[in-house]
């Protein structure tokens, strides 16, 4: 998967949840969205990207990916 595209998508999701003042709640919103709508290879790719430093991800998006569970 094109990681730049996935980073942009994750950031777009985070931009919606960033309206939430509590950043932990915002990150949980993003994590839940990724776990419900992203296909496993997309989740694997973004987790791997964060493992390599997560360049380009906003803080909320990065926090969400870090909390994603293992992908089958």
């Amino acid at each position, binding site marked *: 998967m*094109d990681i730049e595209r996935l980073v942009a998508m994750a950031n777009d999701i985070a*931009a919606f949840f960033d309206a939430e003042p509590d950043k932990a709640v915002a990150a949980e919103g993003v994590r839940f969205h990724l776990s419900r709508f992203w296909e*496993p290879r997309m989740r694997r790719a973004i987790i791997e990207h964060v493992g390599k430093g997560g360049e380009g991800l906003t803080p909320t998006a990065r926090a969400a990916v870090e909390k994603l569970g293992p992908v089958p």
Partner: protein
Amino acid sequence: MYAKDYHDLGTPAAKGESVTLEIDGATVTVPAGTSIMRAAALADRDIPKLCATDTLKHFGSCRVCLVEIEGRKGFPASCTTEVAAGMKVRTQSEALEKTRRGVLELYVSEHPVGSCPDSSRCELETLAKQHGIGESRFAGPKTSRHVHTHKPVDHSNPYFRFDNDLCIVCSRCVRACEETQGTYALTIEGRGLESRVAASQDETFLDSECVSCGACVEACPTGALMEKSILTAGLPQKAVATTCAYCGVGCSLVAEVTDGTVSRMVPNRNGRANQGHACVKGRFAYGYATHQDRVTRPLIRKSIADEWTEVSWEEAIRYAASEFKRIQARYGRDSIGGITSSRCTNEETFLVQKLVRAAFGTNNVDTCARVCHSPTGYGLKHTLGESAGTQEFVSVQQADVIMVIGASPTEAHPVFASQMKRRLRQGARLIVVDPRAIPLVKSAHVEADYHLRLLPGTNVAIINALAHVVVTEGLTKEDYIAERCERDSYEKWKKFVADPINSPEAMEKVTGVPAADIRGAARLYAKGPNGAIYYGLGVTEHSQGSTMVMGIANLAMATGNLGREGVGVSPLRGQNNVQGSCDMGSFPHEFSGYRHVSDDSVRAQFEAMWKVQLSGEQGLRIPNMFEAALDGSFRGMYIQGEDLAQSDPNTSHVTAALSALECLVIQDIFHNETAKFAHVFLPGSSFLEKDGTFTNAERRISRVRKVMEPLCGYADWEVTMLLSNALGYPMHYRHPSEIMDEIAALTPTFAGVTYDKIDELGSIQWPCNDKAPAGTPTMHVGQFVRGKGKFYVTAYVPTSERTSSKYPLLLTTGRILSQYNVGAQTRRTANLAWHSEDRLEMHPHDAEARGIEHGDWVGVTSRAGDTVLRVEITEKVAPGVVYTTFHFPESGANLITTENSDWATNCPEYKVTAVQVVKVAQPASWQRRRQAALPASPRRRPQESPVS
């Protein structure tokens, strides 16, 4: 002219208290306000008539429907006289007969018996024969209106002709144009013997304002206005009620058949969605079904560089199945997927997603709704609890204030637009939120109170500003909210929108809309008392599409505008079965009825019924499939009834992905753009060739009935079965009704739906189950489907697609009345008479600054690509904004749209693309080649298998 076998009751229904009277000695009870004519017809005592028809208000001009009423002098007209308690009416007497004969003789002097092409269905000639009138004593040149008004027959409209010599000037066509359609294109010119029907300023029908909806043809009691198809094909031998396959209004139509093919399509007067009306597409543009471009034999090829070879069905299916098996064996189970179609039936859509989940063993299934209304599903599900519109169309007749956001109903949903305009003429107020001056902003007897002409991409800013006014000016319905909504979410949202950053004054800089207009519109909507919101793809096809849908739901909840007739949030669905394809589990994360695949209990029900283990992980969406194809992890696709290469954004990106596939199987009625990248072409069947159901924008499930045999030998659902069986997962449905039975067994909202019940009720709006056995016209009555309505904070996030010095204009896209989506159907009809090419609308200021004149070719360039269009200079678009339709592949509209998409659903941001426009000499070379090659057809070689 009536649909075959229709019993016209003469005047519309009334809704008063019951009144009992006597007609020809029979006791009749009808609602107060009913005409004597209608009451008599209901009692099977039909009174002769010519100027009356039950779709139009009474007119009282023909003087044929006279009756006698005990205690009253003279012969009152039964169409204009209302019933009264105890009234005694006689419809037959010697005196009445003498009077009627005299009147009929006068008409026959203008329209001799036997002059109509279809005398059996000419109301005048039928009446004349019933009354024993052959020739008229009054016939002659001095008294003939036609001598004074003679005009050549008007053949200009491609679908019907007007013969003034057969016209009796009853005004039914004029009134139909006004009352039914709301266009006011027809009038009666002249007086007395010189009076005649005229279109606009005495122009031809084609050149006039006529929108060719056919209401006048339907209303004409003689053969003056008549379908050309009847004149050439002959009289119909049978009639089949079915459902239109164009937009999401889902009009009920009656297909009249002559010698096995459709000779006329007429609106079903009993149709609940369309109420006896239709448009230029549904009523007339069905000829594509038998167009010479139809592909009726399966085709295969090993490589997309090869020519196609015609093969048998068995070979095509065997090859497709073997390729999918090979790919999965090599690249894994999730390396293939499928796309369902919003043009196909619910049953076909359900089967395709079942094929993908059960036979492919993956959840890589998506639908073309991805690129139109997926944000509607997300936004309404989260806020209200159900992924569907809240109202039935007739609800608009109770609306006091109508807000239309990002939609142009008169162009894209014309039959519903006619209903809406009727309510507006009665006095409902109108707010239009759109970058473009859509026709509804100002048309005959309709004018918007507010046109919030926002910059493309600023919807959320507008909805927040409207909500800001509602909240800060105390216009919220606090009792309603307290009873029906989540308090915490409301308080959080209220605090958010009340922030001055969301005020109209602050947002004026973002949206370009004067703050005073936003304030006025907000007050108008909130005070309704019934405020109804209708929206279209101008809401969903944005990077904040889902946010905007939630913002709309927030505003409706805050003002108490949900849960009863006359209010609501109603998405106007683009294609005929967008709602249905979504309902049927076409999204990669949901089974039918919008239940997530990770829900163990739901998955267990499907596994038990389908006898196979299913994946609990959501699959790829369409744009994700493209990405996966480009990285090599996705290699095979089965696409039913969808043209991704033309309809999806950033064409070069899409075609690169399609080119990377090892096996692309296309099932379609035409050799579409996507087929250029296919390895197997399976012929599809049109809506006329199969049984099934469509679900329209008001959740109405209507029957599609087979009118003619499939040209390729199989209906689409049968082809999916063949493929599934070849893959080793057996499917053995004998009729689509058996598929619907399975849908009902697995889907709570469809639990009570059967073909028998649809036949009995005419149509059913889901949910239909034990709680609502006859269906649910209005949703969220009493409480929201999710329990308490939930407000979401909807911060405005500007799209990354912004203007710059390089791309200083914003392009937005839409539809035109006579064409439909990518045009595969309508481009193959005479609708080309109205729209034969896509044009770029541009404001005069922008044109002048670039030295561009009306009709020039212009190059349109975005960061994704470029194309060339002819320009139309108009003030319908604001300075800085350009607009085009996307009905012709040679226009290349999606060469310039980008891969930007909605954050929640990946619905493409078709509505905002930064572009530059410059004058050029001619179309691009690829466009010229394509235009020269029209009409397109696949290159074929006979019977030589490339893959044996």
